[in-house]
């Protein structure tokens, strides 16, 4: 079941488009914002609400990088692995994170605190290497700085 709050937010976005299905990506993001990810049940509820088939909606949900169709931890770390960050050492960043968190890319820590994902260029190339935790950008990274920044996310 979608909450009243979710429905309200979906409807206010839907008003921006002449066709109802145009709100599909916004709707997925609105639900994910509150629940962390989009479960099969959530997907069916959203599809029903906006008048699409769940299959069509899933083909959209699985296309976009920022929609999670599997559970994630409380915080999502997105490590940029595009070319400027690669030149500046994003592989070392990733290795450090993997070691420290004990997970590989795509996995969530046992305490459900962090999920580690790769991401496309974050537009922070003059301060590479960079990563995002949830919506926050962190740049000019080295192992010490990473450890410090991660402390902020409980």
């Amino acid at each position, binding site marked *: 079941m979608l909450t009243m709050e979710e429905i309200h937010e979906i409807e206010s976005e839907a008003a921006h488009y002449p066709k109802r299905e145009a709100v599909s990506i916004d709707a997925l993001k609105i639900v994910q914002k509150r629940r962390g990810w989009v479960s099969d049940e959530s997907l069916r509820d959203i599809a029903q609400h906006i008048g699409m088939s769940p299959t069509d909606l899933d083909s959209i949900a699985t296309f976009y990088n920022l*929609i999670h169709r599997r559970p994630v931890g409380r915080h999502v770390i997105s490590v940029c692995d595009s070319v400027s960050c690669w030149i500046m050492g994003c592989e070392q960043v990733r290795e450090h994170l993997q070691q420290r968190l004990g997970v590989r890319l795509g996995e969530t820590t046992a305490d459900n605190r962090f999920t580690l994902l790769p991401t496309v260029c974050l*537009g922070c190339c003059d301060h590479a290497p960079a990563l995002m935790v949830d919506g926050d950008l962190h740049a000019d990274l080295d192992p010490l700085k990473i450890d410090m920044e991660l402390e902020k996310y409980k």
Partner: protein
Amino acid sequence: MTSSIEKPLTGNIRPDGSVLDFPAYEQAGGYQAIRKVLKGGMTPKAVVEEVKSANLRGRGGAGFPTGMKWSFVPVGEDTPNPTYLVINADEMEPGTFKDRFLLERNPHQVIEGAIIAGFAIEADIAYIFLRGEYTLAATRLSRAIAEAYERHYLGKNILGSGYSLELHLHLSGGRYICGDETGLLNALEGKRANPRAKPPFPVVVGLFGKPTVVNNVETISCVPHIINEGAEWFHGLSRTKDGGTKLYGVSGKVKRPGLWELPMGTTAREILEEHAGGMRDGLKFRGLLPGGSSTPFIVEEQLDTPMDFTEMPKAGSRLGTGTMIVLDDHTCPVGMSWNMTKFFARESCGFCTPCWSGLGWAERILRAMEDGHGKPGDLDKLASQAKMWSPGNTFCALAPGAADPLETAMKYFRADFERHIAEHRCPWR
């Protein structure tokens, strides 16, 4: 805005990273251009002509003349309704960080440009298509849009002129292919962002089947200044035929990576050596991608080429987004090619076979080479694959953009590729 004549786009931007808010933007002369247009009696056609003669070329990378694009939109009474304007703020080209700067620091400049562009093409509705990861830009843009509505710069009957424009912010679900004009339109319609076949072009059949102009953030940011100061002034900013200034960036192992607004046509050498401070101590320059990861490499002998849309192709490359990525002699060109090919393979939308199939194959060959499993004949395989990705074989520019850096890497750094195969290892590891 009139206060910074040499750097119209960034001259008023605050160095501390804070946003140029509504009062500050107005104080610096902001929102004067829409007064000139809407209250000064300029016709839509006059606006189009001014931008045309300014020779403003699309800063998203393709360099299409903006005024000409606008002039293709059907206007008048018997035309399809509504007409849409879309600002492409889906900056995802690896190595590119210019639009984020403009969006975060000077959002009202983008909005004012959008209102003028909207008026010129007689648009009813405008969207800013922003990449989802640009969270700070999203916050600042939302606020700026609300401020513009409060002051009646947006909405019905703007400044009493009779012109109305609604502006909405759309946050992307995240996918590189959304940066493609027609992929973006499908994403805005709530679909997978597969690019569309052209023709018909979006200016005739675009968003929801209606006439649509898609303009990049930096392009649209130039528009208020062209209106305020005139086409001739805009021309004078440039060192070449392409009008205006350009936001040039440098990333990689240089002394001072960064972003600078400079005259269009500044040479790569000047940007690299004077602004970025040259290579870090102990490192040598080997080559650079002039404007993001889908532009062809240039090397030392091409560094004096003016970085613009006209001159770069003569040197065998393209201006692209104007944000260059520098390769040094301690970084493996094969590894760099693998990284970029892997990016393109991952972000392929999966529609055209040469792209989804070929990119994955090339990525595996390059990975094998890096791991010491390269085989004689691999370079020929890569070359024939890259040929398959050329324009015309696919709907959009993703695969051609993957071919350009790979083909030029194999041309300029061939010995490095051959060494990987002969020595069964990556010499840089």
